[in-house]
């Protein structure tokens, strides 16, 4: 033990003979280790965010979406109805036993007005379960009830942003908003809390940001607006006939999701000709996202590993120079009784001191990853506000999450790098003939 301690002291002293050189060498490992921790933390942060977004869709749900069929499938004259029907909704509810609840959804673009304030947003016709499945929470009032749906009441629930835009001063609950397209008034019965966006899923489902939504009972929507929507676009009338935009099924258990999805696919097989529906299974997406995240982290880890390798080569380079430079010292030590293994030990200890110093400081700096990213983002937000807005969502919001294993891992790797890249210079030092080493200038 005393021997090792003495060797370590000696190593530190020898390294301190060339402080600049030692610090630069340490820097190589420092950067390698810090980047292992940083890259893993950032990629995990991104992966976690993607996973959170998918999870917010609900792992136990299946979404069946109406999609616009390719134009050659539509008849050239008049409007072709397409997509999910209410009949199919009833059929799914009645025939698939593993379904706990099902929500029919109809959505459309609408303008909302209150007094002289206007806002373009999305009108969503749904049932009360919608709030639970999409994890909507209320700040005041209540979400649509079964009674309101049954009675086809002209009641609505506003998302936080709509409430804020239309009612900057008033309490929205109890007020009536106006929708000019169908000349109807709706009584506000509830206001939602702000909610983060959900994942964008392939082509079948755009990212939902829920921010400009107004929710009304689906039966009210059917009665007041109906299935046919005509819009004026660049002078010509366009329209669509859709009964339902989406059916969200909730399974009794997560384990039954895949089986249920198969049953749903079979039940709705008639749509395969039209290509007018898409089945989205968040659970599958979640699994995909996990694989993607693992791949991403592996990739990032490899990049970091390469930088560690470069750091290791730096150590080897310096140690080879050191060995040549200290040939005389090696000769002296051998003459005074050092065995080959004493010389090996001395040089290995020196490389280990270098690499572990880099490793430990790198870990400390790696732990600062979270606060550092937050600070950098705050600074960037104040100085380059415009440019920041143009950056993708992930860049603006990602919160690194340190992978716990990366800490001991990085420490271990830096130790191994030190030993591996130290062995060659050390054996070279030990192999030297002491007599020739003593003669060395």
């Amino acid at each position, binding site marked *: 033990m005393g021997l090792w301690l003495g060797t370590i002291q*000696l190593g530190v002293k*020898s390294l301190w003979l060339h402080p600049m050189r030692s610090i630069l060498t340490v820097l190589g490992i420092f950067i390698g280790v810090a980047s292992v921790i940083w890259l893993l933390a950032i990629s995990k942060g991104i992966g976690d965010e993607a996973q959170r977004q998918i999870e917010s869709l609900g792992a136990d749900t299946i979404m069946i979406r109406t999609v616009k069929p390719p134009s050659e499938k539509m008849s050239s004259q008049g409007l072709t109805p397409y997509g999910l029907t209410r009949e199919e909704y009833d059929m799914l509810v009645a025939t698939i036993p593993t379904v706990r609840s099902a929500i029919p959804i109809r959505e459309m673009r609408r303008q909302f007005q209150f007094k002289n304030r206007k806002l373009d947003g999305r009108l969503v016709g749904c049932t009360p379960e919608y709030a639970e499945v999409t994890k909507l929470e209320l700040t005041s009032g209540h979400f649509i009830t079964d009674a309101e749906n049954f009675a086809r009441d002209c009641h609505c629930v506003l998302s936080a942003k709509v409430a804020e835009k239309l009612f900057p001063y008033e309490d929205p609950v109890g007020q009536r908003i106006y929708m000019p397209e169908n000349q109807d008034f709706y009584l506000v019965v509830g206001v939602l809390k702000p909610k983060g966006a959900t994942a964008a899923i392939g082509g079948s489902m755009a990212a939902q940001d829920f921010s400009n939504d107004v929710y009304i009972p689906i039966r009210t929507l059917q009665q007041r607006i109906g299935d046919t929507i005509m819009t004026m676009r660049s002078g010509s009338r366009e329209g669509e006939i859709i009964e339902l935009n989406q059916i969200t099924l909730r399974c009794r258990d997560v384990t039954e999701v895949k089986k249920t999805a198969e049953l749903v696919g079979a039940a709705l097989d008639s749509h395969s000709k039209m290509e007018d529906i898409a089945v989205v299974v968040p659970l599958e997406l979640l699994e995909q996202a996990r694989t993607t995240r693992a791949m991403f982290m592996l990739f990032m880890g490899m990049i970091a590993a390469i930088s560690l390798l470069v750091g290791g080569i730096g150590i080897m380079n310096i140690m080879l120079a050191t060995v040549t430079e200290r040939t*005389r010292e090696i000769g002296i030590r*051998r003459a005074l*009784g*050092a065995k080959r293994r*004493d010389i090996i030990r001395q040089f290995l200890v020196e490389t280990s001191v270098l690499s572990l110093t880099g490793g430990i400081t790198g870990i400390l700096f790696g732990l600062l990853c979270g606060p550092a990213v937050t600070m950098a983002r705050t600074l960037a937000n104040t100085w380059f506000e415009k440019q920041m807005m143009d950056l993708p969502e992930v860049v603006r919001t990602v919160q690194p999450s340190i992978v716990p294993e990366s800490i001991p891992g990085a420490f271990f790797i830096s130790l191994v790098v030190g030993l591996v890249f130290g062995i060659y210079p050390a054996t070279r030092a030990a192999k030297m003939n002491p*007599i020739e080493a003593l003669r060395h200038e």
Partner: protein
Amino acid sequence: MSETMETDGYACRVVDLKKEYVLKSETVRALRGVTFDIPVGDYVAIMGPSGSGKSTLLNVLGCLDQPTSGSLWLGNDDAAKMSDDELADIRSQRIGFVFQAYNLIQQLTVVENIQVPLFYQGRPLSPEQRKRCHDLAKMVGLGDRLDHRPTQLSGGQQQRVAIARSLVNDPYFILADEPTGNLDSRTTEEILQLFERLNNEGRTIILVTHEDEVSKRAKRVVRLKDGRLQWDKINSQEVRDEAARYALENMPVEV
């Protein structure tokens, strides 16, 4: 060749030592059979022209190099038959080296340099050993410079540190390869006086030199030529005293 040898009273005994260097073009016979004994307390100067094998002999005596054949008896062991590690152990435990170029380790202080051979004995230093290092530094007149680095010392001071270092493991003998070769006459005298004192205290000293003034101060002169012992003679006390007086009289005046 006898398997054992009477070694009591001898620092070392050299029997028919040969050393050959096999090169591609030729075989260099650096030592061609050297036999001599060094009793404990002797003070031997090895002389000889360049290339005569002085350094080769000294390296073998110092267990840095192994002879091609012959024996080197240190105590009851024949160093000629030892492994690399065993030789290293002997060097750290029973041999003192003093070099022409001092050969101190730059990053270590005076005391630490003195401790190096103990460090390789494989045990942590005992308090007695630490004290011994301090005492040795005092003995060579560097008691007030224990924490100095070699670069902060003069050549003579560095050589005195090297001598203190050579004594730290209580060696069979001190081997000195032209120890005064780099020093002016005043410091040379300092070092020679130090050797004389150590020899008077019972230390065995073997030094290589090519200066007659230095060799005359030793008790005995061994001359090598072409890898063989040319002659081996004892310096009378008169010769030694005369050389010492001459050195003092011709000392340059201190400025």
